[in-house]
């Protein structure tokens, strides 16, 4: 089985699971309890935080959450509501993950105004577009680091450079698909909040965190206990937090292996280009681990199953929206026509993906294309 759907989720590393289990069994106390068992759990939670800070070499506060979705909600809703008195304008892009887009739509229904920056045919925005969209009442910019469908990398550092001279505007970036792959300047003074999710980096589902600048004030989403500096009520998932620290450690350490994906991507692209019916949606500037292409004329679900028959696991669009059959909004935003946008397939590699897997994929592709030659007419 060749698993090429690492952007949907990854298999947790054994070491990550081991640390989860150890903590869940041996340090089960409630970190808020004042007795020894609570104290131990609290200490472990703190240690996980300081480990993450060391590994990412950042001074930011770490708020543990239940994953990327919650981190995005917390950052965007939290900042928007906190700064509501100052302004109600938010800037984002048309190609964000639903956990950003849906929050923005919700905020629009509640009196905020949102500018959705259009992207070019490669899924990218420019810093000039951000600059031009800034208004007097702009309070927040949220732009993802690496797009989950096509791998487009946004100019986060440039935007941060721009926004550092706009101290009234907060900047959030969704780093879920970038962590362990593409560098992000974690300590850049122009970035206020960064979203991380565990299960995309061989951690567990239901784990994640928000990195936030020390002086960033947020309104909390959930009210209750005073955990996580009061920003996130609820008994902490201590074992999950420790497992996330472990997963981040591996992601950071293994980023050095990422380079070799460029060669695998070349190998893939070269093969894909030999088929007239295949449109490549990820250009060379995109991240190397995500390659999106369309095989027009056949439903992508059919293709996914054809590949699966031959033990190759791919996906259509992102997992979160795989159930509705519409075209990919990301590809439509990139200006693709309906045909291309509704026949997209995403191949997403692991940093340690074996070259042989891609060689094998190329063979299977040949078979599948042969098999569906007639259907495609």
């Amino acid at each position: 089985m060749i698993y090429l759907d690492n952007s949907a989720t990854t298999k947790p590393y054994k070491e990550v699971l081991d640390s989860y289990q150890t903590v869940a069994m041996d340090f089960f106390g409630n970190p808020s309890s004042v007795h020894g068992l609570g104290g131990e759990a609290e200490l472990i939670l703190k240690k996980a935080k300081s480990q993450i800070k060391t590994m990412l070499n950042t001074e930011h506060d770490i708020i543990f959450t239940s994953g990327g979705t919650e981190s995005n909600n917390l950052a965007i809703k939290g900042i928007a509501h906190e700064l509501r008195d100052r302004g109600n304008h938010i800037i984002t892009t048309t190609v964000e993950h639903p956990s950003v887009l849906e929050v923005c739509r919700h905020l629009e229904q509640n009196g905020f105004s949102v500018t959705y920056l259009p992207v070019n045919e490669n899924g990218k925005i420019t810093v000039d577009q951000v600059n031009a969209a800034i208004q007097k009442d702009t309070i927040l910019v949220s732009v993802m680091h690496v797009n989950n469908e096509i791998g487009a990398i946004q100019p986060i550092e440039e935007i941060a450079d721009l926004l550092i001279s706009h101290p009234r505007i907060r900047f959030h970036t969704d780093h879920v698909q970038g962590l362990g792959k593409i560098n992000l300047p974690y300590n850049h003074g122009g970035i206020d909040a960064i979203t991380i999710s565990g299960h995309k980096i061989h951690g567990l589902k239901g784990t994640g965190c928000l990195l936030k600048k020390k002086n960033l004030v947020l309104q909390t989403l959930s009210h209750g206990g005073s955990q996580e500096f009061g920003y996130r009520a609820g008994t902490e998932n201590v074992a999950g937090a420790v497992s996330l620290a472990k997963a981040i450690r591996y992601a950071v350490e293994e980023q050095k292996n990422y380079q070799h994906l460029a060669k695998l991507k070349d190998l893939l692209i070269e093969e894909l280009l030999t088929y007239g019916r295949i449109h490549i949606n990820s250009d060379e500037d995109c991240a190397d681990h995500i390659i999106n292409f369309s095989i027009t004329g056949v439903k992508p679900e059919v293709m996914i199953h054809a590949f699966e028959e031959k033990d190759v696991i791919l996906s259509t669009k992102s997992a979160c929206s795989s159930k509705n059959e519409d075209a990919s909004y990301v590809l439509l935003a990139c200006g693709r026509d309906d045909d291309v946008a509704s026949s997209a397939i995403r191949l997403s590699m692991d940093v340690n993906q074996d070259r042989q897997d891609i060689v094998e994929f190329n063979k299977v592709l040949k078979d599948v294309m042969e098999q569906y030659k007639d259907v495609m007419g």
Partner: protein
Amino acid sequence: MDYIYLDHAATTPLHQSVQSEMKEMISKAFGNPSSIHHFGRETRKVLDRARENVATSINAKFNEIIFTSGGTEANNLAIFGAVEANKDKGNHVITSEIEHHAVLHPFEELERKGYEVTYLPVDTSGTISMADFQKELRDDTIFVSVMTVNNETGIRQPVEKIADQLKDHQAIFHTDAVQAYGVESIDVNELPVDLLTVSSHKIYGPKGIGFLYKNHSIHVKQQLFGGEQERKWRSGTENVLAIVGFDQAIRSLKEELNSRKKHYEKLSNEFIKQLQASDVICSINGETSLRSPHIVNVSFEQTDVEQLLMNLDLEGIAVSSGSACTAGSINPSHVLTAMYGEEDARLRNSVRFSFGKDNNLDDIKRVVNTLEKITSRLRRLA
């Protein structure tokens, strides 16, 4: 020294069967349940099976279970979600003074948003009165939240009667059953609530997972936005491993509920009996006949709670002063304040003992002996 853990209302260790089930399933169910390929479908099956079982445990339907990141999130979703969805029908909401902070603080937020909130008082029994409830209920009341069992005193609240009162009323009824779920069988047909909260780590499951039961006829506005998980009531890739553990914790609970309950009864009754027979000068907070078997809240005259907790901890006995959630500082309990008023000495000298399935009668004996020693010393110092 062997630690005696008597803080099960704060959190519980993982059940043995939960550990092994999670270990077993992780390699089988690592896919993203939204993926359409093999790994996604296998994981979806695991998730569906868990949801079915969780629903069955309270006699609800499959689609009436929304998994959340815990009791706090479930309470927040219930309160904000239901109030927002029904704000056209009125502006008045009711809760009690003794709710967990994960209910009280959302209500305080509702107040800031302009809702009119009634906090029902309790008397020294630790329970709200139905007369008060009837008096406060109005035509424009849209939402009521009263917990099933209080987490500090273990005192059960008259939730059946409230549900009955609300049968022909527009108000939506939510109950925080986090403490009740582990000690009594709950059937949403017999206890006809609209929304009900359960948390996994109080019933020997993992932390970071819980569920909200939402009666299918009730509207709730989504609070966490994103993908289409949990039928769009709660976005975010599902915490599959924790759900597997939670599911197993519920299965074990089902098998062991009666024996656990009897065990808690035996332990807490014996605890009270031995305390009363000892030199310890103490009284039980709240009406004993309404007490859930796993919690006993005790006031120790002429002592101080911080010193009590510290000394007990040094002797290897883990207990707490009430809710664990007011991290660090021991503020006077809002529950005891509601029962006795702000000036009462019991606010400063009460300790919660909460029992678990692995405690035994030897533990009780050691705890009572230790309490004799500590309290007589503290009384001499006082």
